[in-house]
């Protein structure tokens, strides 16, 4: 007769073992594990932002919305520009009216709820613009927290969202430290900048890079040592956003200062 201990052991084993979806067994496929090694890849997309050159015209935001079919009037955007005005009293004033979709039409800082803050020109110590977009991190926390595998990273480093699979839970939106993700107002799934994957895969540049008349935005391939963007990243003093989170972002900034959030 089966003992109590064996009864427990056996039933737990069977129940536990059977409850693992068969797909999870793929985890232990040695061929797949080998494929995980990050070497021999020909392309890894990286982005370079020069905050000295950005003038805050917002053509990049407009171009991105058009190219990627994000409704112009919707208050969400795949990329945006932030304005930083540091005044002599060491206060930092930041705004991004509608993501700078229409540029910066007011010298007053937009502080929300329809209120504005006047800044006198003589009080300005520093003022500059910082474009932001998805960092296509090497350790993307948004991909880590997707419960169903709707968002993922391609071999060339771009993080994409499968619109037909996303359940719209919003965990990836909460998981991104940079705030680049949002819900698409038409498709009702997660959405974010994808480096215009349909353009870069054809040898074109992203819409925002093309739209920028000042060379503040550039895209390149870090695995190509002859790429001008790669050369700058390797030789000049570049920085990344929120490095302490361990996400290893692949958007590099020239002129990033401590005030930038």
């Amino acid at each position, binding site marked *: 007769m089966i003992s109590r201990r064996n009864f427990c052991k056996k039933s737990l084993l069977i*129940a536990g073992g059977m409850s693992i979806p068969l797909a999870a067994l793929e985890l232990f496929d040695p061929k797949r594990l080998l494929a995980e090694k990050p070497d021999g890849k020909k392309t890894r997309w990286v982005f370079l932002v020069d905050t000295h050159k950005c003038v805050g015209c917002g053509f990049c935001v407009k171009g991105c919305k058009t190219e990627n079919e994000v409704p112009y009037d919707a208050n969400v955007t795949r990329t945006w520009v932030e304005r930083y005005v540091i005044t002599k009293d060491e206060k930092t004033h930041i705004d991004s009216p509608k993501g700078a979709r229409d540029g910066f039409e007011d010298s007053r800082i937009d502080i929300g709820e329809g209120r504005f803050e006047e800044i006198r020109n003589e009080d300005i110590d520093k003022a500059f613009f910082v474009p932001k977009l998805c960092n296509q991190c090497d350790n993307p926390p948004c991909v880590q927290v997707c419960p169903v595998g709707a968002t993922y990273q391609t071999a060339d480093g771009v993080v994409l969202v499968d619109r037909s699979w996303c359940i719209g839970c919003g965990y990836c939106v909460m998981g991104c430290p940079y705030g680049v993700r949002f819900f698409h107002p038409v498709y009702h799934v997660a959405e974010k900048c994808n480096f215009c994957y349909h353009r870069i895969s054809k040898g074109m540049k992203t819409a925002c890079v093309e739209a920028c008349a000042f060379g503040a935005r550039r895209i390149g391939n870090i695995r190509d040592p002859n790429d001008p963007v790669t050369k700058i990243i390797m030789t000049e003093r570049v920085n990344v956003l929120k490095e302490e989170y361990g996400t290893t972002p692949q958007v590099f900034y020239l002129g990033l200062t401590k005030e930038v959030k």
Partner: protein
Amino acid sequence: MKSHVWRPLYVVLLIIGAVLVARKILVPSDFGIGARGYMYGWHRPSNEEQWKEVKVKYRTAEYCKECHKEKYDEIKQSPHANINCENCHGPALGHPDDPKTLPIDRRRELCARCHFRLEYPTSGRGHIRGIDPKTHNPGLECVTCHWPHDPRKAGHAPAKSAAATPRSWGGSLSASQASGRTNEARRGAHDIA
């Protein structure tokens, strides 16, 4: 006697079996671990191709150049050289088949994106000459006095007085220079040669 305690377990196994069958039907067959491993690459690979097939809207100035070489050359030797045609004219899409013409955005807000004067010395913005749209000829289209393809040249309307003449790079234009642009420079928007 004791065998009845297993019955709930059989029901459980039945349910698990049903879930696995449903999985076979509902989940696309190529769903699995990609190049970035299980943590970062758990997905349906066919989605990557779907993203690559998104329609390209902006064709860049190099595409416009094929038919609009004159305008292309004009703007490329002007201070507006780095501005993409489509920034102001919208995406080319299938032009000239569809759309047959591209809009010409003459709104003040378009120019004000760069030329609304902001005194930011530590930014590239501080180096762009500009005006305050609220006080500088409010309501008037910028192109009335300024030629966007070459801002050194005057706009559509001939300048009637020195006050209305935009300054050029070297000094003020003479009235004849301001009003009498050559026919070449004053090509209408619909000519493509």
